[in-house]
Each structure stands twice: as structure tokens, then as C-alpha cells.
């Protein structure tokens, strides 16, 4: 009897110890140096480009799409649950244009990573307010972009490839201490919280992406037409998905090409998550997803939704790959950078030469004769 009691105690200790180990591991994971900073930065850039592209594509027809001219879509708008649509409720054409342009500028600034957090908020609110005005012509990719922008709010999206990072680096040029001071002067949240939130956001968006791919893949594989490799034929016959009819016919005319594309779409969605687990298969599935999305963008005229999809995929590229790319990019751009720097100096020299003959004599004369110094 006693033995059993001791053994139960042992088991309890073991469970408690294991649980503690998990909790500690989770805490370490959350509090570690921020992960995936490059991937998150590329996601930010991609999502900003999607928003910007969509707004540019619809700029000339904005008054009919979401402005006064969309009054016919009022009954659909009335049942929309987004409170943001109230921002544009019944506004005049001019106000819509201002709002639209401000959202575009916010997307540009998010793209460049200039005050990324603030531009993320403005882009998100502006995007929802504009797109939700006309639910009749809404697109599934709107949801994808909105959800990604929401999660990005939690993350440190401008630590790499951004004007924010560039500014911090420049300020902190004086060495480690100065760099840290420059960083901490811009930090609003304590380090533990900003790191924790970054990782929570990363967890949320990565899980969402995997679920999305899995759901899309499962839905497709359940249909006979996808199993047979002919699913994209009928879609590519419809006028709205046929920007280049000759190209569509060329591709669907070949049974092999059609099946290749159909299976590529199906497999990259269905097996996206499991293939991420191994470093080699991860590279393969990411490369295949990129190719598939570029093809879809052109063949079906879906550029902005494909781009948004790719921006999500960018989260899963390893930091090592990005670092190598970053290095190569910098060394490739260095000559151009040097050239611009030299022209900058030339410009400065020219300005001094002009100033010496014009501004300085005038200011000297002014100081000597008027101020009498």
C-alpha cells in the first residue's frame, strides 16, 4: 500500500515537472529575441503592395465602386457588420477622394516601413472602410488582407528593410550604446511585452495561414474535378477569369498542361503545412507556391489576391535565407549606392559654389552694413 502511495507521488512529481518544463519552454519562446523579422517585414511589404495595387486599379472608377455612384448597393451595405463603413457613409465625392488618397499614402508608408505601426492602423481602417462599402463586388482576398493587417499590428514589422530601421541605424551609428539608446528612445512598450506580442502575432498569423491553406486544399480535394486535374478548365472559360483568351485556350487546350497546373494548385494548398516541417521540402513547397501564384495572377487576372497570398507564404522562409539574400542585395546595390552618394556630394559642391557667389556675399553685406557687426 505504501509503495503505491509513493509511486503515485512520483507520478505527480513527474507530471508537475513536465508541465513546468513546458511552461518554461513556452516562456522562453515568447521572450526570446524576436523571430522571423525578415519574413514579417516581407509580409508587411506584400500586404501594403496588395492594398496599394487594389486601390490604384480602382482609382478611376472609385466613385461608382464605393462612392455616391454605389448607392444602388445600399441594401447589401446595410447588413454589413463593419463599423468602419460609417466613416464613408453618404460622404461627398471630394471627401471620398481625400480618404482614398490618404489610405493609399498610408499603404505607401507601410510599404516603406515609415512609422510602420501608425501606417498599419491607418491602412487597415481605410482599407476596411473603402472595400466594405460595396459588398456586392467584394472578394475573398479582402478577408485575407484584413486579417493579416490585424495580426501585423502586434508584430515588429519594421525591424528589417524599412525606413524605420534605417533611421534607427543612422542615429545609432556611434556604437553599441548609442544604437541601444536610439532604439529605446523609439520604443513605446517594454521589451518583454513587445517581444511577447510579436511572437503571439507570429503564432496567430502563421496558424491562420496554415488553416487557410489546409481548408482550401481539403475543399478542393473533395471535388472530383480537382482529382481529375481538370478543375481550372471551366474557371478559365468564364469571361471574368480570361484576361488573355488566347493564353487561356492555349493552356486548357493541352490536357497535360491543364492537369499540371490544376494539381500544382491542389497539392501546394493541401500539403503546404506538412511540407513546411522539413527544410528541403519547405524550400520546394514555397518555391512551387510562388510559381503557382504568379501563374494564377496572370492567367486569371488576380494580381492582388495572389500577391497577398505570397506575402503570407513569405512568413515561412527562413531568416538564414533572407540574410543571405540581404547580403547579396546590399553588395549588388553598393555600386549604385556609391554612385548616388557621389552625385550627392557633387550636388553639395555645386550648391556651395553657387552660394559662395550669391547667398554668402549678400548675408555678409547684410551683417556688415545693416547689423553692423
Amino acid at each position: 500500500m505504501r509503495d503505491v502511495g509513493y509511486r503515485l507521488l512520483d507520478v505527480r512529481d513527474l507530471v508537475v515537472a513536465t508541465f513546468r518544463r513546458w511552461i518554461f519552454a513556452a516562456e522562453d519562446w515568447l521572450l526570446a529575441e524576436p523571430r522571423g523579422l525578415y519574413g514579417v517585414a516581407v509580409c508587411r511589404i506584400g500586404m501594403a503592395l496588395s492594398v496599394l495595387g487594389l486601390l490604384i486599379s480602382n482609382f478611376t472608377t472609385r466613385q461608382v465602386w464605393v462612392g455616391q455612384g454605389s448607392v444602388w448597393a445600399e441594401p447589401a451595405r446595410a447588413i454589413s457588420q463593419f463599423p468602419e463603413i460609417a466613416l464613408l457613409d453618404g460622404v461627398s465625392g471630394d471627401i471620398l477622394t481625400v480618404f482614398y488618397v490618404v489610405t493609399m499614402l498610408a499603404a505607401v508608408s507601410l510599404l516603406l516601413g515609415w512609422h510602420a505601426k501608425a501606417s498599419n492602423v491607418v491602412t487597415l481602417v481605410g482599407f476596411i472602410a473603402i472595400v466594405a462599402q460595396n459588398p456586392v463586388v467584394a472578394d475573398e482576398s479582402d478577408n485575407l488582407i484584413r486579417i493579416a493587417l490585424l495580426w501585423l499590428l502586434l508584430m515588429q514589422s519594421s525591424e528589417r528593410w524599412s525606413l524605420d530601421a534605417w533611421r534607427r541605424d543612422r542615429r545609432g551609428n556611434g556604437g553599441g550604446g548609442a544604437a541601444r539608446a536610439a532604439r529605446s528612445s523609439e520604443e513605446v512598450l517594454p521589451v518583454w511585452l513587445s517581444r511577447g506580442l510579436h511572437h503571439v502575432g507570429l503564432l496567430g498569423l502563421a496558424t491562420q495561414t496554415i488553416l487557410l491553406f489546409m481548408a482550401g486544399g481539403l475543399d478542393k480535394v473533395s471535388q472530383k474535378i480537382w482529382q481529375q486535374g481538370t478543375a481550372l478548365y471551366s474557371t478559365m472559360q468564364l469571361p471574368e477569369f480570361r484576361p488573355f483568351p488566347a493564353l487561356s485556350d492555349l493552356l486548357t487546350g493541352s490536357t497535360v498542361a491543364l492537369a499540371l497546373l490544376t494539381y500544382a494548385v491542389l497539392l501546394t494548398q493541401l500539403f503546404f503545412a506538412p511540407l513546411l516541417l522539413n527544410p528541403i521540402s519547405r524550400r520546394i513547397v514555397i518555391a512551387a507556391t510562388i510559381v503557382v501564384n504568379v501563374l494564377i495572377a496572370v492567367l486569371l487576372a488576380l494580381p492582388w489576391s495572389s500577391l497577398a497570398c505570397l506575402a503570407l507564404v513569405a512568413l515561412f522562409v527562413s531568416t538564414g535565407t533572407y540574410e543571405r539574400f540581404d547580403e547579396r542585395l546590399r553588395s549588388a546595390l553598393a555600386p549604385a549606392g556609391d554612385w548616388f552618394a557621389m552625385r550627392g556630394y557633387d550636388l553639395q559642391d555645386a550648391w556651395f559654389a553657387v552660394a559662395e557667389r550669391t547667398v554668402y556675399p549678400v548675408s555678409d553685406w547684410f551683417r556688415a552694413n545693416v547689423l553692423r557687426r
Partner: protein
Amino acid sequence: MSDARDGRSDTRLWQRGLLLVLAFVALIHSAVLMFWLAPSGPVRDSIGERTLETYVNPYFGQSWSALAPNAQFVDESFRFRAHIENETTGKDRVTEWVDVTRADTSALRHSLDPARVHQMGRRLATNINGAMYGLDSKQRKLVKTNYISTPVSVLQGRLAAAGSPNAVRAYMAYDQMATRFASMYAKARFGGKILEVQYLVGRRTVPDVDDRSSKTVRDVEFSWFAFGYRRAFEATYEAQTAFDEYVGR
């Protein structure tokens, strides 16, 4: 590279606890979304459709088949004609049918980044066709009658008396949208005073892939469904101007 500050040892218990709770919430959130994305099953049913919907919508709303591209089989068409009065002569006439979808199709050709306005007619047709599925044969007969001097809200009452109320609400919303859209389009296209409009939706299915060498969707005739005349909608000056610029003459 690694920063020793703010590791586990430098944080307080409540700080670590808060982060753990947030991470847990993110995971629970993902699990809820999984049930939302999944087709209906025992777990989803036990949570309840309404509960899930109020949690997920609007910000996290997505559909099961969200990830493009999808297999689509139906080509849809939206047409209308209008009864208009010439404001100077006072003469009235009925216009020819205007094929909105055809105009959109030519605008979409060779466009890699199509504007969404070119989907308006087609989406209206898709939604009206969808709403029609919810109506029974008695109700389908009712929507064919004209509502010119009688307000169209009377039609809603008659439809509701004849069958399922949910489908009626959806149909009435799209009827209103189609009427407004056709009225504004007609005004932009023909000018004058628009008295009534009548819209028409068509659908045709893409033939089997095996027949592609002999028969494509363009060889298939649309099957049309015509609705009764509806009293025209008069848009504000600014709204109509926006539409005029888009449609051109």
C-alpha cells in the same frame, strides 16, 4: 547577438503569465477558426452556428473555399431595358435590351488588374440567380408581375405569404439593387426621364472539358429569366454624375 536582458529571469511572474495567456488566447482563437472553416460536423454543431458566427464575423470572417482559384462552372449575364420619357417632347418609348455583362467583358479583356466595377452586372446576376433558388414556383410567378404604381414592398408581402421568408428577404434586397442599378445605368445611357426598368438575368453552364474542341461555353445559349417592370429609382445628382462618367454614352 543574443541579448541577455528580458529573458525569463529578468521578468516578473505576472508579465510571463500575461504573455502565456495571450499566446493561449491566440491558439484558442485559431481553433475556433478551424471549426468555422470546417464543414458542419458534430463539434461545430455543438458550439452552434450562431455562436461561431458572432465570434468570427466580421473581422475574422472567411469562407471554407476562400483560397483562389476555385472551380466555377456558371457564366452569368445581366441585361435590362427601360421605359423612358423624352423630357422636351413628352414622348415615351421602350429602349432595346442593354447587355451590361457584355460591356464588362470587353472592358476586362487584356486587363491584368481589372477594376471591380466591371463585375457589378455579373455579380448582381449571380446573386439574383442564387436568390431565385430559394423561391418556389408560386413565388417565381409572382416576381414576374409589374410593380409600377403599386410599390414593390407589396410584392414582399405577397412573396412572404406564399413561402419561405428568408429567401424572400434576400430576393427583395437584390431586386432593389438591380432596379437601382438598371435605373442609373439607363439614365446614363439614354438620358431623359426613366419611368420604369425591367431586368433580365441569364445563366449558362460551361460544357464538359472533354467536349472542348467542339463546344465551348460561348456556343451555349443563356437560359433567361425576366422579372416584371419596376418603378425607376432616381439617384441624386452627384450619384448619377458618377455613374454617367462610368457608363459614358
